[in-house]
């Protein structure tokens, strides 16, 4: 995702390596589909077994992989602007932190506050303490609204049990 942070697309008629990767990924997906379909038992004498649709879709993906490859080799992919990869990774880091906190039982409020701060920072804010406070208030309100008004339970950690 980050291999093309230069303005590669501006030069037309060049092999687009990112496009080749996309084509390979599609071909790999098709192979996975065929392999998975081969694991299925088909004892359906009348009609169509569960393996038919995956194979049909795999064939389609295979053809599209070739189509995408041709486009990439011709350099026909749309031009792309340079990307701020650091900011993208910051948000992904926030998501990873959220998943970790939820997974470890840290609760909803700390998890979403972490994502809030990471995203705000990625968009150029440099006031982490203020954002922590804003995120905390906002996610606390969401937690209370969900548990009281909608009677939907969100994961509770030590903090949420206080409510």
């Amino acid at each position, binding site marked *: 995702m980050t291999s093309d942070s230069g303005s590669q697309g501006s030069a037309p008629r060049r092999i687009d390596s990112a496009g080749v990767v996309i084509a390979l990924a599609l071909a790999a997906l098709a192979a*996975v589909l065929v392999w998975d379909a081969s694991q299925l038992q088909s004892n359906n004498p009348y009609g169509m077994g569960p393996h038919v649709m995956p194979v049909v*879709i795999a064939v389609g*993906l295979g053809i599209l992989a070739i189509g995408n490859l041709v486009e990439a080799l011709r350099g026909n992919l749309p031009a792309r602007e340079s990307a701020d990869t650091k900011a*993208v990774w910051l948000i992904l880091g926030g998501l990873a932190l959220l998943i970790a906190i939820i997974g470890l039982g840290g609760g909803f409020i700390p*998890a*979403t506050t972490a994502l809030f701060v990471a995203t705000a920072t990625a*968009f150029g804010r440099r006031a982490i303490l203020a954002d922590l406070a804003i995120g905390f208030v906002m996610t606390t309100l969401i937690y209370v609204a969900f548990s009281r008004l909608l009677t939907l339970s969100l994961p509770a950690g030590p903090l949420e049990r206080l409510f």
Partner: protein
Amino acid sequence: MDAFVALANGMAVAIQPMNMLYALIGVLLGTAVGVLPGIGPALTVALLLPVTYKLDPGGSLIMFAGIYYGGMYGGSTTAILINTPGESASMATALEGNKMAKAGRGGPALATAAIGSFVAGTIATIGLAFLAPWLVDFAVHFGPEDYFALMCVAFVTVSATFGSSPIRGLTSLFIGLTLGLVGIDKLTGQPRLAFGIPELLDGVEVTTLAVGLFAVGEALYVVSRRHHSEEKLEPVRGSLWMTKEDWQRSWKPWLRGTMFGFPIGALPAGGAEIPTFLSYSTEKRLSKHPEEFGKGAIEGVAGPEAANNASAAGTLVPLLTLGLPTSATAAMMLAGFQQYGLNPGPLLFAERPDLVWGLIASLFIANVMLLVLNLPLVGLWVKLLAIPQPWLYAGILVFATTGTIAAKPSVVELSMLAGFGVMGFLMRRFDFPIAPVVVGLILGPIAESQLRRAMSISLGDPMALLQSPMSATLLGIALIALVAPFVMQGLGRFKANED
């Protein structure tokens, strides 16, 4: 005559205070998300699905429809005041509307957009009310092979025919179809593409996919190019009211826009962009002031906005009568029906007329509410645009993950959300359309089950697909729609609609 009676009964349902309240919440939310850049009606419905599954089905569906209509109104405000359309169907509006705002005529631009949306929405909803029973009578005779063929048409038109690249559109569709395979096969009970992960046995959750692609993907994309875009909010200057000349120049484009929007929306062709651009070019051709186009011609706002709203009503025709979604928002609404175990189609009209006609009737009410909300209160909505970008996107991501956490608080589900977010980012970066993925995930399993039903009736003879004249015709149309864009490579085509 049936339509009148049914509509009157529907009106009785729609004016119940609770349903009016749902419609009001829907149009308020819809307008807000339409105004805000980065979130569209499809994402909003996706976010609300996990929250609403305990609520009354009729009320929630009325709310979802209000969001759809409201999103179309709100999008025009963003398009006119900051040249970056909130939703892609407002792109044509931005062309002239932003110029009008810069010239100090933002008020009349917003007014012609709102009144045009109201006129178009009302006419198109009448069209929906009269076309729907007729189509239902017709669809009653559909066999499974006909439904399968119809879905093939929708697959092709949504992904290939009208996109900027048929190959990329079809790639998106097939990724969606692949995701639709995941989970236990309903006929044989065997898991497909689950790789032994228990969470995958239930299949890919539509809301997880939509929220990942639309919210997380959009946030990643916007942050990746935050040094490229520059947004400038034009203040609303001058009177909000249209002059007599504005009215004279607006009413014909409204009606013509409706004539473009409704039929194209109602055909399983998907997308509001085609009719909006058709309307724009038509108005440019017919205008008595062609020299004003490009500098802020009111016709260029009135026509596309009407077309935009009319097509939103149009997409509800195949959705309600055939269960066929042709835009991302319609796909999310179908998921909303499915969440309550309801399947839109002829049967639903027979079994739950209160629900279907209540929904249709509430659209009239929603339109009136939107006109009131958008004309005098436009200043309030504009304030939403002043939310700083870091907090806006941080808030969007918090709400997006909250929906998933509330539905399934598992590490696997959240990882899938993040994964779909990365996928949405890459798809935006490489210009793959998003809507076909969502349509593929929702419609793929339905198409497969119709096909397998048809095959078991025919004892496995695939020729059955061609023996029904209906399905043979539809498959022929699908084939033509698939081949045509490759034949016409280079001819002007419009980008597929995302919402």
